[in-house]
């Protein structure tokens, strides 16, 4: 049996230690997924805890029907999306993009490499943010979280073919938007 499913079943029967182990296995991925989704470092751990809290509260009704990670990232996507929607209702786009929290730190300003990282991070975030939601999530799951097309399809509740199409279309748009940052970026026709 899949180790995550086994741990979740133990957590269901009241073993909190098993749930801790489950978190240790996945919290890093969930924190980073939320960080990349929201581009806000400070909130990502709180939101990741919210994801695990939802799972913990519903552990009694858990049924091992699918891979644990697909369930986990489905909840993480919902939590991130809800957070972004709430935030967008209160902030302008410029304010959202400026929330890296790293510019202005004297130790970072002197390091060119870190300035580049900050810039490229924001550029990638803005390019990803401009994609339709499903293309963005499909690319994040497949590229950053290492999910297979089949697993991403379960998170997005669509077919494997649809995930491939989302990734392909998203990738084409990213080429357009990130062209200045690509090595030897030129024009291509369609």
């Amino acid at each position: 049996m899949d180790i995550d499913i086994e741990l979740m079943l133990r957590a269901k029967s009241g073993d909190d230690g098993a749930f801790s182990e489950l978190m240790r296995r996945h919290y890093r991925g969930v924190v980073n997924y939320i960080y990349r989704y929201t581009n806000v470092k400070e909130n990502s751990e709180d939101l990741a805890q919210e994801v695990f809290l939802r799972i913990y509260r519903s552990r009694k009704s858990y049924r091992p029907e699918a891979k644990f990670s697909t369930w986990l990232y489905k909840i993480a996507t919902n939590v991130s999306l809800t957070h972004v929607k709430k935030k967008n209702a209160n902030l302008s786009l410029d304010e959202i993009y400026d929330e890296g929290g790293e510019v202005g730190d004297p130790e970072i300003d002197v390091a060119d490499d870190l300035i580049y990282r900050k810039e490229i991070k924001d550029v990638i975030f803005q390019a990803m943010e401009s994609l339709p939601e499903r293309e963005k999530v499909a690319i994040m799951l497949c590229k950053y979280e290492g999910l297979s097309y089949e697993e991403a399809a379960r998170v997005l509740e669509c077919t494997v073919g649809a995930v491939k199409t989302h990734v392909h279309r998203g990738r084409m748009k990213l080429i357009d938007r990130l062209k200045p940052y690509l090595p030897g970026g030129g024009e291509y026709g369609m």
Partner: protein
Amino acid sequence: MECRDCRELIISFSSGDLPSSGRESIEAHIGECPECGLYMSQSAGVWNLLDEWREIEPRGDFVSSFWDRVSREEREPAWGVLPRLRKLGLSWTLAGALASVLIVGIFTFALFKPDSGFMTYADNDARDEQILLELDNATTRETTDALSIYGPWENSVQIMKINGYGDMN
């Protein structure tokens, strides 16, 4: 192979998901189409560029602070109806069953409550039937009166009266 087909297959090509025949036809197309060749290198380039957005390192006390949060939330009183219901440990099935019983109860009470002011369906039906009977009788009377001009008549005076000439004298 068309350029559009080639570009759709390039991701599968790069990840080695294509059968050998598919790989060969893509390689042949890219060999003679510089635009698709450029697209392929850019597609790989953009995928690699995404790696430049590095991971962050979460705090080491993530798990322990999670349990702190759980115990804190369990200690805090739950405000509002939903948290209270959640604390009762009601399952969705039980909650649905309770809601159904409540709805049926309200409906039954409204239907059979004495002196409620609501008309029952039976009352309405009886009243409607009475109205229809009166309408039917009225229609029959009017039809009979209207047809009486065609006879049979006993004399011509009666005909004149019917046609409104009777008062002329």
